[in-house]
């Protein structure tokens, strides 16, 4: 009897203050209406597109970071490979947006899948160190292979192509609202997939590994295989975000492969709350807005960004959504 009461009390305390469906409706409503309310706050539609792109990359990374508890500090590599994959396809192979996205996603995702095999047994900072070093390999490759990738100046001379044929053509070559909704549609599909994955039995095994790896092993969860899968899947999502980045800018630059960007992705996850599903999107929103604002104000934006990192770590380790949850639990 008393246990029933306790369970009910615990369940009541765990139940979020706002029902889940309300959260979802609010998030999607805000995203769909972004082109209309963002300019009122001094933003612009391309900025909202960047939020979606970086948000998707960070959410992809968070499958590994927040839900599996494995620290990759090299996800810019897969993001950048996605961007270069899409850009190179559009420039040298075919003028087709879907094929370019497919090629970019496969390039980044498969690179991650293969590299994951080498490092699944590493843990903690050593895993991170291997991912950083591997990421820089692609940066130097893009940087020094001048004829093919455009070197330091980046890959230009390609642009997004209309999708479909005849009357069913979706012309996204113009920027603006139509392209934003195209990005949002891709984002919605990807995020739905991610959500299903997190709630699936597979997702639960990942969280079991995060909470207690040894116990998960005793429960016959194939820990190395699951971490490898989680790493690969997360790379595929980040690579997809990378292809969208190339389409958004009609440009791919080596900085999309640089380890600083990996750091930005990680800070987006942490700032928003890496133990929550939507946290990385919120973190990406805050980060992209701040970066846009600060870099328009001062040339020393790097020290501002660095200070944000330090402050988040020292005073804000659970992130924005983590704070809310902490308050709900007590």
């Amino acid at each position, binding site marked *: 009897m008393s246990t029933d009461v306790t369970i009910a009390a615990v369940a009541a305390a765990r139940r979020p203050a706002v029902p889940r469906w309300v959260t979802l409706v609010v998030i999607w409503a805000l995203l769909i209406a972004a082109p209309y309310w963002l300019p009122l706050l001094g933003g612009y539609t391309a900025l909202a597109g960047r939020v979606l792109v970086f948000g998707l990359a960070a959410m992809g990374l968070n499958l590994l*970071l927040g839900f599996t*508890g494995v*620290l990759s*500090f090299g996800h810019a590599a897969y993001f950048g490979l996605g961007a270069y994959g899409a850009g190179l396809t559009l420039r040298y192979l075919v003028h087709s947006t879907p094929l370019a996205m497919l090629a970019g996603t496969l390039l980044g995702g498969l690179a991650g899948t293969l590299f994951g095999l*080498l*490092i699944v*047994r*590493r*843990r*903690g*900072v*050593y895993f*991170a*160190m*291997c991912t*950083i*070093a*591997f990421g*820089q*390999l692609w940066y*130097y*490759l893009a940087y*020094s292979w001048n004829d093919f990738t455009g070197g330091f100046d980046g890959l230009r001379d390609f642009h997004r192509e209309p999708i479909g044929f005849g009357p069913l053509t979706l012309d996204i070559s113009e920027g603006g609202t139509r392209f934003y909704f195209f990005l949002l549609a891709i984002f919605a599909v990807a995020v739905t997939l991610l959500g299903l994955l997190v709630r699936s039995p597979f997702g639960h095994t990942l969280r079991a590994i995060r909470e207690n790896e040894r116990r998960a092993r005793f429960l016959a969860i194939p820990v190395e295989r699951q971490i490898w899968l989680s790493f690969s899947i997360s790379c595929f999502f980040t690579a997809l975000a990378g292809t969208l980045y190339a389409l958004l800018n009609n440009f791919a630059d080596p900085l999309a492969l640089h*380890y600083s960007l990996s*750091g930005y992705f*990680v*800070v987006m996850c*942490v700032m928003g709350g*890496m133990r929550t599903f939507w946290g990385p999107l919120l973190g990406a929103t805050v980060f992209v807005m701040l970066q846009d604002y600060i870099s328009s104000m001062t040339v*020393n934006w*790097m*020290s501002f*960004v*660095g*200070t*944000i*990192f*330090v402050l*988040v*770590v*020292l005073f804000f*380790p659970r992130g924005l959504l983590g704070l809310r949850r902490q308050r709900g639990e007590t």
Partner: protein
Amino acid sequence: MQLVLFNVTNGLIIGAFYVLMALGLSLILNLSNVINFAHGNFLALGGYLAYTLTPTLGYWGALLVAPLLTALIGLAVERLMIRRVYNRDPVYSLLLTFGFAFVMQDIARYVWGPNGLPLGLPDFLSQPISAELFFVTWYRVFMVFVVIVVVLGLFAFLRYTRVGVRIRAGTLDLETVASLGVNISFLRTFNFALGCFLAGLSGVLAAGQIGLNPNMGDDLLMPSFIAIIVGGVGSLIGTLFGGLLIGMAAALTTVFYPSASEAVIYAIMMLVLLFRPRGFMGEEGMMS
């Protein structure tokens, strides 16, 4: 032949920088489990401090004092910030040093300006050692000599002094060392400062060779990571070997195929991860 010899000496010198930098990183990583992203910025700081001190102390004074000052600043940074994240998820220590690296770089740019600066050397050091070996200045010989002395000193220190032995013991099992009554908080601070001293010293040496600029440490950071991975985490001898190996490999590749000199060190890393995941001299299980 001369070209090969030229690149061999180059490789030796680049390798020596990698070694000093990677040894400092490796010390901090082994004992405190922190990847110090700001290590390259401590290197730049050492160089800049030497630049500022040279007019008053002369080159030799600056060579001695600048690394000590760098170590002192490292000590303050560890006390004020880094020690707060030791017991947390590694993601926090990474983000902290990563963000702090940005701040340090901007500070250097603000104080000393964005443009490159030269570090004045005593005259006789800039002379070549002979007419045939015109590309080998005395400075290069001197750098290698300093690195050898410092590395030998470091290993002797870790072997024969009480603090050194404790650092090595802490690398293997910090909890046991703590329960034996060693003040590990002091140990970690000292160890961090020691790592920063090595970074500062390599900064002064590098400044004499390639000059100063705010992001001079960035190019050395990644190879240092690779030197640690290749040599094996947990083994300082391994780091030493790894640094020399990739320095040499990069320089020799320059002879035959210059544009691949960066790629070759990554190729070495991949091969090591593939065939000997713990690194050449790494302890089994140190990396998991």
